[in-house]
């Protein structure tokens, strides 16, 4: 079943058209990755799906509902949550408070929230150790975990991950991708934007290759991984 | 290629400007038949709007009344009124003054209303030979500038200060706090009062008239144990001050200068204003029954501070026009020779432009109204 459908999306930054007609779909339970060079429009696409960039043309459907013009907080309510690029940790809030922000829209209290919290802690044991620490004092890897954990606290149907491996040590990168798979195994669909195309394609079911605002190629993760053109351009073949 | 529009436009503007230069200065002097009053005007100069607008409106009414009466009595000589609204701002005054000077029809000015703007523009009027009679600018030093055209329709602060001091002394006050608002008028007057009081005076510095909280000075006044307090400043600050003094338990008798003589003082001070004594070189509004009656008839209200002085000032100018003076020099000569009773006092000026005679009146606040029954000091 199609969870997310993006058709002919156009987005502008000022006068510059950053996305010039991107279409793709994401089925329930899938990990889909968008890869491409910097400036290809990957992050913009994610931000547009989250609703923080306005759509100039085209539409976005989520579970069959048109959310093109929906406010960001309503999208979160429907189950779209993002762990943003650069992680976006609130530096002046504790890890606990940061995680609480994930439930902002849901407004769950009491046992349910405690259960979700426990689940996130289980996924990221490091966060348990740092629960009372200020977000700003965490290391890069911990911040990334916190960002993903926070997004999970909103109980999303669709998790948007923007460059989760950026700025991380190679060892941590491997760890993060393992966790992404685990999350997906729990039934959460993932839309993954990655610079690290090799890892992303290894992890994803399907992938789309973006180039300067267009989708230029699509296929399963493993197909793209061996595609010579993709290898040359993005995988350092 | 064609010449640019810029070049053409500039050329056009220059050409036209040059035409302007050539036929320039044609608007000066519309000298002509001495008998006709065509284009003859008396001007008001001061604030009609802005924070100090009230005072100017009072003055303008006195002027309006005088001119209306004159025009009614002289159907063949209709005098116009020009108003220059400076908002009491010395920055705005020069451009207005130049306009007045350039308008040859303006034969005399009732104003400028305030001392600050007077300093900024009286020199211009002097240079242009445009006579002025101010009904309200009481700064003592204004008459010391050697301006031939300067006159005022009431005594300056150098008369008011000693008058107030003698009133305070006469009331038997022994320890008088002297306070001001650091304004030119307030500080100037307070300094004169303090000097006149001699060692009875307790210097209490200044307050910020725009400020809200005067507790520091209230506390100090209480601590000093004064039995009277003089404040040099304007009514808004005086009202706030009076109120806070009373609230703070200071029971000293309050004295003020003419800047406080306004119903705004009662509005701002409320019950605390009650019983305050205010000095002014201006006459009580009811001191002349005829004037009072005609003022009430025209405006359906009592004349306020300086209204009568403005009426007097206008009367002098109108007298000059009546006598056939049709240029500024003639009007000035007429004023210099003037010696006749006005509604407030005998109007006769010395060579510095000060009115002869030093009447200082004392007012009090009684039942929420300004009361002039204390009459002349001394």
């Amino acid at each position: 079943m199609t969870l997310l459908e993006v058709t002919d999306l156009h987005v502008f930054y000022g006068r510059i058209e950053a996305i010039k007609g991107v279409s793709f779909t994401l089925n329930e339970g899938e990990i889909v990755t968008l890869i491409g060079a910097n400036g290809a429009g990957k992050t913009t696409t994610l931000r547009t799906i989250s609703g923080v960039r306005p759509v100039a043309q085209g539409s976005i459907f989520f579970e069959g509902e048109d959310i093109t013009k929906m406010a960001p907080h309503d999208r979160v309510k429907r189950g779209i949550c993002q762990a943003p690029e650069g992680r976006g940790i609130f530096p002046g809030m504790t890890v606990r408070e940061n995680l609480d922000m994930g439930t902002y829209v849901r407004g769950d209290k009491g046992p349910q929230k405690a259960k979700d919290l426990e689940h996130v802690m289980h996924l990221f044991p490091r966060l348990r150790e740092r629960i009372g620490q200020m977000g700003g004092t965490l290391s890069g890897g911990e911040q990334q975990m916190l960002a993903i954990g926070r997004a999970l606290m909103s109980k999303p149907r669709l998790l948007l991950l923007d460059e989760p491996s950026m700025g991380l040590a190679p060892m941590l990168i491997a760890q993060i991708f393992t966790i992404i798979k685990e999350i997906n195994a729990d039934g959460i669909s993932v839309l993954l934007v990655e610079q690290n195309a090799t890892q992303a394609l290894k992890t994803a079911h399907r992938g789309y290759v973006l180039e300067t605002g267009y989708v230029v190629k699509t296929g399963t993760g493993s197909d793209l991984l061996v595609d010579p053109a993709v290898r040359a351009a993005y995988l350092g073949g | 290629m064609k010449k640019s529009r810029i070049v053409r436009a500039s050329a056009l503007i220059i050409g036209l400007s040059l035409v302007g230069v050539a036929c320039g200065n044609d608007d000066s002097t519309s000298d002509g038949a001495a008998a006709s009053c065509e284009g003859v005007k008396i001007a008001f100069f001061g604030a009609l709007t802005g924070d100090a607008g009230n005072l100017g409106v009072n003055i303008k009414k006195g002027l309006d009344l005088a001119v209306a009466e004159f025009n009614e009595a002289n159907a063949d000589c209709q005098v116009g009124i020009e108003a220059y609204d400076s908002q009491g701002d010395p920055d705005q005054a020069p451009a207005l003054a130049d306009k007045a000077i350039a308008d040859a029809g303006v034969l005399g000015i009732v104003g400028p209303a305030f001392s600050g703007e007077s300093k900024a523009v009286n020199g211009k009027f002097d240079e242009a030979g445009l006579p002025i009679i101010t009904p309200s600018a009481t700064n003592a030093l204004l008459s010391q500038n050697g301006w031939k055209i300067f006159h005022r329709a009431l005594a300056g602060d150098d008369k008011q200060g000693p008058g107030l001091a003698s009133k305070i002394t006469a009331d038997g006050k022994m320890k008088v706090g002297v306070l001001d608002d650091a304004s030119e008028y307030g500080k100037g007057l307070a300094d004169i009062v303090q000097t006149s009081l001699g060692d009875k005076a307790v210097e209490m510095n200044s307050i910020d008239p725009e400020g809200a909280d005067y507790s520091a000075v209230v506390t100090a006044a209480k601590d000093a144990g004064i039995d009277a307090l003089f404040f040099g400043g304007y009514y808004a600050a005086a009202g706030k001050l009076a109120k806070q003094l009373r609230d703070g338990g200071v029971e000293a008798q309050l004295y003020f200068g003419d800047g406080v003589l306004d119903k705004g003082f009662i509005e701002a001070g409320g019950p605390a204003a009650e019983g305050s004594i205010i000095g002014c070189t201006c006459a009580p509004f009811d001191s002349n029954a005829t004037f009072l009656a005609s003022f009430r008839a025209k405006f359906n209200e009592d004349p306020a501070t300086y209204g009568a002085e403005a009426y007097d000032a206008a009367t002098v100018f109108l007298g000059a026009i009546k006598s056939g003076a049709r240029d500024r020099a003639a009007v000035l000569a007429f004023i210099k020779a003037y010696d006749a009773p006005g509604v407030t006092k005998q109007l006769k000026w010395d060579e510095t432009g000060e009115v002869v005679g030093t009447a200082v009146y004392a007012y009090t606040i009684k039942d929420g109204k300004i009361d002039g029954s204390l009459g002349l000091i001394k």
Partner: protein
Amino acid sequence: MTNEVLLDFNNVTMQFGGVTALSDVSVKIFRGEILGLIGPNGAGKTTCFNVMTGVYQPTQGSVVFNGSDITNLKRFQITQSGIARTFQNIRLFSEMTAVENVMVGADARKTSSIPAALLRTKHQRAEEKESYDRSMELLALMGIADRASDAARNLPYGYQRRLEIARALATEPELLCLDEPAAGFNPAEKQQLNELIFAIRDRGYTILLIEHDMSVVMNVSDRVAVLDFGKKIAEGLPSEVRSNPDVIAAYLGVPDDAA
């Protein structure tokens, strides 16, 4: 590469409040080499950079550059003494044109100030021309001269990265510090960058490189130093570092990941 020490980062400790970002780190940079500085996020690489370029004053230790102590110099003085840097997140003067951006760097070596500019002295005009010519030359070197008079903010990402390097080079540094220059580059672009870095080195500059991308660091660096938790855990040739067990444990993980 010579054996002359250009920069001696001497037992530097850096504390923020109670947190120790660097503890007793010593690194030497030799004239003419390319030194790679790697380590997990938060290991203190950028702090190292910031201490070198005067953004922070170290709690302990000293930085000796070209034989003189620069520990307590102001930032601009450090730049003038011959260290230049680029930024991890691009920090160009976005409202200025590309060439003006580079000229700001070139101006670091100039002396004419207000009076000269007012009088447009011969000296000042000569300096202006010099700045301009050198900037255009550097833009050409970086391959971005075609958009010299475009506002920096309107340049494509790759141009902006290279403009940063041009601007840093314009200050005529002896040591050029590059902070993650390959961030956001695809492999093809990374390859170009590698070549560019070599080209810069061949012009006689010494280079300090912070980079996550192993393909860049390992291919370009003459030597590599590794930081972890504010401490230096390894230093040596790329091949040595790559097989160092401490480094694998702390940073690289499974070796083939770096591919």
